[in-house]
């Protein structure tokens, strides 16, 4: 109908009727197709060929041909190149005749079926090692629940101190209270808080036993250090170096670098005549073993140490001084009620375990390191920990 050969009369009598319009037709399509059959593929344009292919009038067939010649290694016997040297080849000596496929030295090998230690624990092992090398004894820190008495009061931290707030500390509802205390020591602690003594003005407030009894998830391992120092005083003082690396709990707002639980590294040195200079010396030795040489000390405030300082190290990568730890000499109000001799000074120093781990392994979000959401692939691929190697 398009070419005007026929027409359709829909309104004819007796139904629609097809009528011839011209006498003869000039079938261009037929002509074109015939010319293709005769080998004249150039007779049609590409557009026409595409159109006929679409109308399934024309099919394009691709014929590929190769010319083969014998190569240098031509042989009529079939041989496959070997990929590996086998026991059989050794036994029957066939390795001398075999062809071996070129090995792809660019690819990686097969990873061994390995187990892995957790990165935080690896860094912990390194720190443990450093402490042992410096003659420190590990403290018994396997107790997460602690009374406010040991966690705060023995450290001369007053009962109204903000750190004892519900929004900073996890309080325990069951078991809610501790019931056993060395009562004569407790009385000395009460006195130094409420009235002063041992050369101190004291805090002069109403110290309450009920507050001291309250159980908390310990906020620092210094609670254990207090227990150990008290024990040391009872058993008879001797020069001591103690350490611990264990978990502490803070009820803080969580973000990319803070969790409710983290690990504290703590060292305590008790010696007659210990001075701030000795503490700085110890710190310097400790960090030398971690590969850090340049240290700067800044005065700071801590409720249970005086003097106190923050320790900074120069981070070459970041190009600035970064805080790496905290240190101080425990206050006499803490030491003397325990019964330690007056000429004994005790220094404490500490840092977090997570921070150096995250810096060392380039981890930005603490949840990738600690907890169920850990990046297991990171654990698998994590290198050994050598703190003294930069």
């Amino acid at each position, binding site marked *: 109908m398009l070419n005007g050969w026929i027409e359709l009369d829909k309104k004819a009598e007796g139904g629609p009727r097809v009528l011839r319009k011209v006498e003869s037709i000039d079938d261009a399509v037929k002509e074109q197709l015939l010319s293709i059959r005769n080998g004249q593929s150039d007779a049609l344009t590409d557009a026409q060929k595409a159109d006929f292919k679409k109308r399934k009038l024309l099919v394009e067939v691709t014929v590929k041909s190769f010319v083969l010649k014998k190569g240098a290694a031509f042989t009529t016997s079939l041989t496959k190149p070997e990929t590996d040297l086998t026991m059989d080849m050794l036994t029957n000596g066939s390795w001398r005749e075999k062809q071996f496929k070129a090995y792809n030295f660019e690819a990686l090998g097969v990873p061994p*079926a*390995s*187990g892995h*230690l957790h990165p935080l624990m690896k860094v912990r092992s390194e720190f*443990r090692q450093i402490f*042992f*090398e410096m003659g*420190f*004894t*590990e403290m018994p820190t396997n*107790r997460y*629940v602690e*009374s406010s008495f040991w966690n705060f009061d023995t450290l001369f931290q007053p009962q*109204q101190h903000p750190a004892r707030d519900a929004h900073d500390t*996890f*309080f*325990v*509802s*069951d*078991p809610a*209270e501790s*019931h056993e205390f060395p009562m004569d020591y407790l009385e000395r602690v009460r006195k130094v808080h409420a009235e002063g003594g041992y*050369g101190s*003005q*004291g*805090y002069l407030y109403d110290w309450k036993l009920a507050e001291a009894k309250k*159980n908390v998830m310990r906020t620092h391992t210094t609670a254990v250090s207090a227990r150990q120092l008290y024990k040391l005083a009872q058993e008879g003082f001797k*020069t001591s*170096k103690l350490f611990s690396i264990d*978990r502490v709990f803070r*009820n803080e707002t969580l973000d990319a670098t803070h*969790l*409710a*639980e983290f690990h504290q590294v703590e060292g305590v*040195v008790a*010696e007659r*005549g*210990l*001075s*701030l*200079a000795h503490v*700085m010396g110890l710190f310097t030795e400790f960090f030398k073993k971690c590969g850090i040489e340049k240290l700067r*000390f800044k*005065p*700071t*405030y801590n*409720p249970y140490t*005086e*003097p106190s*300082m923050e320790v900074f190290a120069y981070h070459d990568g970041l190009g600035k001084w970064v805080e790496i730890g905290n240190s101080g*000499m425990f*206050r*006499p*109000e803490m030491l003397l009620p325990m019964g330690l001799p007056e000429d004994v000074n005790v220094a404490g120093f500490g840092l977090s375990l997570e921070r150096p781990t995250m810096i060392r392994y380039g981890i930005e979000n603490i949840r990738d390191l600690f907890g*169920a*959401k*850990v990046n*297991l692939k990171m*654990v*698998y691929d994590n290198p050994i920990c050598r703190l003294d190697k930069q």
Partner: protein
Amino acid sequence: MPIIGVRKAVLDKKLEKVYTEKEFDSLCFDYGLELDEVTSEKATIQKEQGKTVVNASDEEVYKIELPANRYDLLSVEGLAKALLVFQKKHSIPQYQIVRPSVLQRLVVKPETAQIRPFVVSAILRDVTFDADSYASFIDLQDKLHQNICRKRTLVAIGTHDLDTIQGPFEYRAEPPTKIKFKPLNQTKEYTAVELMELYQTEAHLKPYLPIIQDSPVYPVIYDKNGVVLSMPPIINGEHSKITLKTKNVFIEATATDLTKAKVVLDTIVALFSQYCAKPFTVEPVAVENADGSVVEYPMLKYRTESVEVEMINRKIGINLKAEEMADLLTRMCLQSTVANDGRSLQVTIPPTRHDVIHACDIAEDVAVAYGFNKIVNQLPEGHTVGKAFPINKLSDLLRVDIAAAGWTESLNFALCSRDDISTKLRQEDGLKSAVLISNPKTAEFQVARTTLLAGLLKTLACNRDMPVPLRLFELQDVVLKDEKSDVGARNERRLAAVYSNKSAGFEIIHGFLDRIMQLVDVKCKRDGTGYYIRACEDPTYFPGRCAEVVGPKDVPIGKLGIIHPDVLTAFGLTLPVSAVEINIEPFL
């Protein structure tokens, strides 16, 4: 640690020198402060409220972090003065109480004992404020409220224009319906009841309402003519408010802790008396307590303490002569003179240094003034031999060999939800020996874990895209209630492992247990000298695929088996898991 924001222009004026950021940062470091941030009013609003305010200032503001116990540094007045004395540019101010012939009186009525028993008071005469010092005055009160006053619960400060009111003043406690006045920034009068409601929607006052809300009587201070000065700790009256033109300032501080109230009052008058016509002078007020005693405030006490030069030298590890040490202390506002032939110092502690309560505080100030980084390091002489804590030594040895066996170490939180250790593990009384947290912020910290299994199953669930089989272990403490312990709870060192693959593999986890026993040198024997496993039923495990592990002396030490499908579902796991958990303390 508290942070104050000071306009750089004001700081330079007060410090009598224009500092570069680096110079000021260095000065702060030496004194024990930290230049936390250099920002501007505009930038602060942008950060806190997320919007740009066009007419907020672009002028530099220095945010300085202070030690928590130095209340005297909470305003630029105190901070600058301390730094100037430190640099020996100024001498230590001598605060004086100037008694007039007739003192103003503040009478305390007995009912106040029910709600807020204590009050202290003082007057600053002939003050001249400018915009900066006025703002600083208000800001200091706010900072003190946030810090030492513990958000106004311990102490609340009120400052008033003395020329608008008349003494004698009365500190009473009255039923809220009886109290009626025009509060600060309002145009009409309200009763205390109405104010409680009005301030429910005021974000910066709402937090303080609970301090007195439920009391039958509220604290209130009146003047002779019934004008309300303030209703502490909520709000002051509009009538007596301080303006730029105020010349005479009446300060009152009500409290539940008298010691802190005295410190707060001392701090305010010491810092702002520099603006009086006669600088560093304060006029006292006589407070007549309900028991009849009359006390004059402020205390502004100077205390002297004698310290031994030798003791301080030894404590710090330096060797200063008495004169040198005295000079250093004077730089820290602790005026000192040599005594006792150079063996000791008489140190005068001013009312701005309430943080000095022991000779060790004085020792620290010597060290700060000397310069911490000038102290020459020494190493302690005492000889000590190191020693590991036995359970830790055992744990670390085991961990290494477990990793060698092809298992990967997991490290999970000790705090978890109640469901994690009970319903999700199909243990109905799973909470029986659990330690409960009273103030968890989220469900994640409701209890302390009594088993390591929950953490391991959670780790599996968070790592579902890792190739199987997954072999995880954890060697850490769980927490259990224990009446025999002095705190009522103890830790227990456990080893737990999970194996996850397309089939559960009981024999794999069994083999793991066998390897562990081999490592602790315990043979598989049923005669009480070794270990063995025996079938048992436990809701956490699949029926018929659960066993109890019995250690030497026939003591059960744990269980192993295939985890029950309902437990897998509860933890969001789709692959079978077999697990083991044992107590390793018996192997010490």
